[in-house]
C-alpha cells in the first residue's frame, strides 16, 4: 500500500483538501444556459415548422424568456469570478482551444439574435410591449423588418442556440484533469437536458391544452433520450481507465450517490417520465403540473451533481494533517 502525506502546510483555499472551485453559481449558469438554449430552439421551431396555431405560446411569447433567463445565469456566473473587475478580458481575446472562450463569444452573439427573435413575434405575443416599441420610429421599422424575415431569423437562431446548449457540456468535458467530466457525451446530454427543461417551462406557462399536450409529448421523448445518454455516460466511465472507474465511484456509493440517483435520476427523470406517460395515456391528470416542476428541478440537479462529482474526481490526492484552524487559533492567542 502507499500513503501520500503532505508534510508541509498546504491549504490553498478552494483547492485543499479537495477541489471546490465551482459551486451553485456555476451550476445555476449551466442550468440557465441550457434552459435558454431550449427556449430559443422551441420558439424558433414553432415558427420554422409553422405551428403558430397549435403552439401559440411557443411561437409568439416564449422567446422573451430567453434573455431574462440567460441574464440570471450570467449574473450568477459573474458572482463566481474571483477577479471580477477583469471580466472584460473575456472579450479582448479569442482562444481557439478554450471552450470557455468560445462560450463567452457565443453569449455575445446570442443576445442580439434573441432580441431579433423576440421582435419578430412581439406584436402577436406581447401587444402592449409592442405598442411601446412602435412609438419610436426606429423601433417600428425594426419590428417590421424582423416580422418580414421571421422565418430566416428563426432558422438562424437554431445553430446558435444549439451551440449555447452544447458548449456548457463540452466546456466540462474538455478538462482531462477531471475524469468524471472527461466524456464526449456530456455536451449532447446538457443540450437534451436543456431542451427538456424548456419543454417543461412551456407546459407550465402555456395556457392552451393542445399546446401543453404537445410539449408534454416532446418532453417525454427528450427524457427518454436523456436516460439513454446518462446510461452511455456511466457506461463509458465504467469501461474507462482506472481514473474513470474511480470517478464513477462518486455516484456509485460515493459522496454524490444520493444527489445523483435521487435528485437527478429519480426526481428529475423517472418520476416525470411516469407522470407524463400517465397523463398522455389519459389515466391521471391530477398531477399534471408536478411533472414539469420536477423536470426543472432535475435539470438543475444534473448540473450540480456533475459539477460536484467532477471536482471530486482527480489525479492527485494527498492526505493532509494541516488545519487552517490551527493558524487562526494562533492569531487569536497572539493578536
Amino acid at each position, binding site marked *: *500500500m*502507499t*500513503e*501520500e*502525506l*503532505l*508534510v*508541509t*502546510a*498546504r*491549504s*490553498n*483555499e*478552494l*483547492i*485543499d483538501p479537495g*477541489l471546490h*472551485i*465551482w459551486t451553485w453559481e456555476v451550476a445555476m449558469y449551466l442550468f440557465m444556459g441550457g434552459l435558454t438554449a431550449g427556449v430559443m430552439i422551441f420558439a424558433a421551431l414553432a415558427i420554422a415548422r409553422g405551428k403558430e396555431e397549435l403552439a401559440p405560446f411557443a411561437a409568439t411569447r416564449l422567446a422573451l424568456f430567453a434573455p431574462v433567463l440567460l441574464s440570471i445565469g450570467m449574473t450568477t456566473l459573474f458572482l*463566481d*469570478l*474571483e*477577479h*471580477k473587475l*477583469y*471580466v472584460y*478580458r*473575456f472579450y*479582448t*481575446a479569442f*482562444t481557439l*482551444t*478554450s*471552450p*470557455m*472562450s468560445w*462560450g*463567452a463569444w457565443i453569449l455575445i452573439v446570442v443576445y442580439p439574435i434573441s432580441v431579433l427573435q423576440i421582435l419578430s413575434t412581439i406584436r402577436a405575443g406581447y401587444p402592449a410591449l409592442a405598442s411601446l416599441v412602435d412609438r419610436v420610429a426606429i423601433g417600428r421599422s425594426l419590428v417590421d423588418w424582423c416580422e418580414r424575415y421571421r422565418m430566416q431569423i428563426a432558422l438562424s437562431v437554431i445553430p446558435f442556440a444549439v451551440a449555447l446548449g452544447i458548449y456548457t457540456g463540452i466546456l466540462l468535458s*474538455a*478538462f*482531462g*484533469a*477531471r475524469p468524471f467530466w472527461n466524456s464526449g457525451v456530456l455536451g449532447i446530454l446538457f443540450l437534451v437536458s436543456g431542451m427538456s427543461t424548456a419543454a417543461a417551462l412551456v407546459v407550465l406557462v402555456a395556457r392552451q391544452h393542445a399546446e401543453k399536450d404537445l410539449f408534454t409529448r416532446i418532453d417525454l421523448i427528450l427524457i427518454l433520450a436523456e436516460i439513454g445518454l446518462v446510461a452511455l455516460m456511466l457506461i463509458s466511465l465504467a469501461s474507462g*481507465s482506472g481514473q474513470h472507474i474511480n470517478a464513477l465511484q462518486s455516484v456509485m456509493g460515493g459522496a454524490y450517490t444520493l444527489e445523483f440517483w435521487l435528485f437527478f435520476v429519480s426526481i428529475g427523470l423517472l418520476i416525470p417520465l411516469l407522470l407524463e406517460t400517465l397523463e398522455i395515456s389519459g389515466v391521471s391528470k391530477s398531477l399534471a403540473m408536478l411533472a414539469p416542476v420536477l423536470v426543472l428541478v432535475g435539470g438543475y440537479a444534473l448540473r450540480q451533481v456533475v459539477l460536484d462529482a467532477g*471536482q471530486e474526481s*482527480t*489525479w*492527485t490526492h*494527498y492526505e493532509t494533517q494541516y488545519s*487552517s484552524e490551527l*493558524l487562526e487559533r494562533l492569531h487569536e492567542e497572539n493578536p
Partner: protein
Amino acid sequence: MTRFVMVIDTRTCIGCGDCVVACKTENNVPEGLNRDWVVEATSGTYPDLKTEFRSERCNHCSNPTCVTLCPTGASHLWKDTNIVLVEPEKCTGCKACIAACPYDARLVMHPEGYIDKCTFCHHRVEEGLDPACVSSCPTGCMYFGTLDDPHSEVSQLLKTRNHKVLKPETGNEPNVYYLI
C-alpha cells in the same frame, strides 16, 4: 523553445520544507497559500516500508492544459520557454486553469483574486540564477537547468540516474523530474 526542467533527488531529500519557506519569502506568497509543498510517500507493509520525500510544485508541462483552456490568454508561456506564468491583468479568476491542472498546482491569490502559481522564479532565471527553492535546499538535492544542453547538470543526471515524473499518463508531459 528552451525547455527548463527541475530535477529533485528523492534519495537525498529529507523533507525539511526549506524549499517551501524559500518560495514564500522570495515571492511574498501570502499567508495560508503555497506555491510548493512536500509530500512524504510511504509504501509497503510494516516492517518493509519505504519512504520517499518529494518537493512538488507546478510541473511547467510541455503540454500545459492550463494554458490551452484559459479563455483570456492570461495563462501563458514565458518568452520562448515552457515556463507557465499568469498575467494578473488578463485573469478574470474564472478558475478554468485550476480545473485543468491535474497536479492541483494553482491557487487563488488573496485578496486580489487572480490565479497564482509557481513561476520557476523566472525573475531569477532571467539573471542566470536558480529558483529560490533550488538555491536554498540544504542537502543540495534540487537541480535546475535546461534539457536543450546535453552537457547541463540536469541532462547528465537524467542520463545517468533512474527517474520518474508524476502521473505521466495525464499526457501533460511534466518537467519536474524525481531521481529514484
